[in-house]
């Protein structure tokens, strides 16, 4: 009997072992096995000792199975959005990589490069307290190098920075070689003129069909022709970009009307080149043109250099007013810094002054240009008021800065020395009070100009916008519309009587004639 008991035990053990093996077998679907699951479940019941365990056992089992699932990440992941910062950084990264074609041009670069030494400029201006931040200046430097590589410029200069409400402009001034850099003729203006002509024609056709309304007797003044490329106001070409690393946009040439209107309006820049400029008098163009006009005014008003740095070429004409080019004086030895800072005689303008007409060289338009609006006297230099046909003359090139006129008792320039403590290495700095933000420095044989500001002139008093011209009188006087008193009854009867007499007289004469003929 013992044998059978052992045998039975053995059988039981084997059966248990077989069943356990069955339980441990992993499920094909979920990779769990029953044995482990029951172990965990019962451990949980032992730990928690819930009430009415038998009723909640199924729920516990389900929870347990659910909690075993590994937490996977959601398969939907946010793709990394390219923020504006990232885009800008990628564009600026291009600044720091050398272009592939640069390897072979080493020698040429070292000899003569149109690239200005912006780092030196930044150093000197920092002594004066004018700076854009060192990293920013470095990026500007590299961006200028990009510009010079892209366009074949004879000379290039960092002109400055103009701040706007939504974005800023970095401006570079470039000069092309002779004959290069011609851009396509702006078809915008002609297109607008054509549109306007067509509209006028439509209107006139409709109008003539009905009662002719009186035509306006206003004749707009003839537009002043713009100056040629490479001369006068358009001597240099300007490129702007919003941030260093972004592509440089070339600004179009400026026309005299744009300059005259820019003198009368006062607006902030927005930072977008295609923004419209809504103002009175209406500005012919959008922000691109307004920017170009302000740049032209600032350059003409505040670009100065030490006396003697530039001189007139020897083969120039004799007329003072027509000299418009200068060249560097190779014999220039620097003027001492103290003298430069004290006397304004030693600084001269090297950009031509812009006349009231909006050009540098006066042009005789056949009719007298009627200025309908009052112009504030915003000119710095004295001018002769243009009479009927007398030419406008501005001060000649290379006039000293001490001849600039004051505005409202503020002297037009303030000068200072950068440091009093180490005078032998200091720089003389000139600050413009008429265009706040314009600075010039001179140190030894070097000098530089820069403008960092909002792009507006200092008026000195509150700005008054130009007043609208008075509207035209309604109708030109004529017999059709002049009022007259209606005739009174007696007058009408008298007239009627007179008419009857006349007709009676006529009838008699006719009768007489008939009778005569009959006879």
């Amino acid at each position: 009997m013992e044998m059978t008991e052992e045998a039975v035990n053995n059988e039981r053990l084997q059966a248990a072992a077989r069943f356990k093996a069955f339980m441990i077998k992993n499920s094909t679907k979920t990779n769990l096995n029953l044995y482990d699951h029951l172990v965990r479940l019962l451990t949980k019941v032992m730990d928690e000792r819930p009430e009415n365990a038998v009723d909640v056992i199924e729920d516990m089992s389900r929870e347990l199975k659910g909690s075993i699932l590994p937490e996977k990440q959601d398969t939907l992941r946010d793709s990394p959005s390219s923020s504006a910062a990232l885009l800008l950084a990628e564009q600026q990264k291009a600044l720091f990589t050398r272009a592939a074609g640069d390897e072979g041009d080493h020698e040429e670069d070292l000899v003569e490069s149109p690239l200005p030494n912006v780092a030196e400029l930044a150093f000197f201006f920092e002594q004066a307290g004018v700076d854009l931040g060192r990293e920013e200046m470095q990026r500007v430097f590299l961006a200028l190098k990009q510009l010079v590589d892209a366009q074949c410029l004879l000379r290039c200069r960092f002109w400055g920075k103009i701040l706007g409400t939504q974005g800023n402009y970095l401006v570079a001034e470039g000069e092309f070689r002779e004959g290069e850099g011609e851009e396509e003729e702006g078809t915008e203006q002609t297109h607008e003129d054509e549109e306007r002509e067509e509209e006028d024609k439509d209107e006139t056709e409709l109008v003539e069909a009905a009662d002719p309304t009186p035509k306006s007797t206003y004749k707009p003044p003839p537009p002043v022709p713009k100056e040629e490329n490479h001369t006068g106001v358009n001597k240099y070409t300007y490129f702007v970009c919003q941030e260093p690393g972004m592509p440089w946009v070339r600004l179009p040439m400026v026309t005299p009307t744009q300059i005259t209107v820019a003198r009368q309006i006062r607006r902030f820049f927005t930072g977008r080149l295609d923004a419209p400029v809504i103002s009175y008098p209406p500005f012919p163009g959008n922000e691109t043109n307004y920017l170009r006009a302000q740049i032209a005014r600032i350059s003409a008003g505040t670009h100065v250099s030490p006396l003697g740095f530039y001189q007139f070429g020897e083969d120039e004409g004799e007329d003072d007013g027509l000299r418009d080019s200068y060249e560097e004086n190779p014999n220039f030895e620097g003027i001492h810094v103290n003298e430069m800072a004290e006397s304004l005689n030693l600084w001269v303008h090297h950009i031509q002054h812009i006349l009231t007409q909006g050009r540098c060289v006066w042009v005789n338009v056949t009719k007298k240009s009627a200025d309908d609006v009052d112009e504030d006297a915003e000119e710095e230099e004295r001018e002769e008021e243009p009479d009927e046909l007398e030419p406008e003359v501005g001060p000649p090139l290379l006039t000293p800065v001490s001849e600039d006129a004051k505005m409202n008792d503020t002297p037009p320039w303030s000068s200072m020395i950068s440091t009093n403590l180490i005078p032998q290495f200091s720089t003389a700095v000139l600050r413009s009070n008429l265009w706040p933000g314009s600075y010039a420095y001179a140190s030894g044989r070097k000098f530089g100009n820069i403008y960092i500001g909002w792009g507006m002139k200092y008026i000195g008093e509150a700005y008054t916008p130009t007043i609208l011209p008075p509207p035209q009188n309604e109708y030109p006087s004529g017999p059709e519309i002049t009022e007259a008193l209606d005739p009174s009854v007696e007058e009408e009867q008298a007239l009627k009587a007179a008419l009857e007499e006349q007709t009676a007289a006529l009838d008699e004469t006719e009768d007489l004639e008939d009778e005569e003929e009959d006879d």
Partner: protein
Amino acid sequence: MDFESLHYSLDLATGNGLTLSSEQRAALQTSLVILKRNYKFSRVLFWGKILGLKLIKHVLSQINLHHFLSLNSLNCMDWHLLPLATESMIADVALAAQGRFTGDPSHEHTEMRIKGEGDDATEEEVTVKVNEASRLATTVSNIDKDVSVVPRGAFTKSPCGKVQTNRSFGGLDHVEAVKLRNYLHFREPVNLKKKSILEMSHLNPAIDFLDPLSEDVPKGSWCLQLERGSTVCILRSLLWLGLTFFHVPQTPQHGHIYMGDGLLNLDLPFML
């Protein structure tokens, strides 16, 4: 801005083009330490720089417990106390001071004020004289009242009314930093009391106890830009041209500085 953080914050606020030269910075660091000890100030802020016609004045403001003092200097080394700006002084300066600052502290601006009363025709001519120091003091106080800015959350107000810096201010994040309503004027709130209860329901009384910039009139008198590759948020005031406020998002760094000619831009509505 705090003078302790001056050497790196000045770099962040240079968008306007004006900064201090390296010599001035060095002088400033030295003199401010001495000044702090002499006057026993707890916190020193470099307020900014006003360009006069002849000379340039640097202005400092100090906070000493409850007092708020301003000092000015021409060369960043010798500092002189400015008079406190009282209301009568402000009124006088508003009348008398026209044109630019000259930079000469003893310069006097004069203005004739004619008091006439219409039919009575009793005209008295009152000459109002204002010297440059008072003009400077009032300008500083006006600028502070109009355009000093702090980010929302940088200061907290305890229920008993005390305003303190918020030590756990982690900075605005990039999304919030470009919205103008997250920046507040640091002065006695003017518009807050006029708000209806409905509008105030979503404000947090501990943080939103100052006027936000988005309610300034005229709209658009602040220009908000991200500079340096969007790492710094710069606010420029168009009302006082030259005031720059910077804030580095996600960090508690912020500050404002005024570098300009000290003139209010009255033509702002025409220019926008």
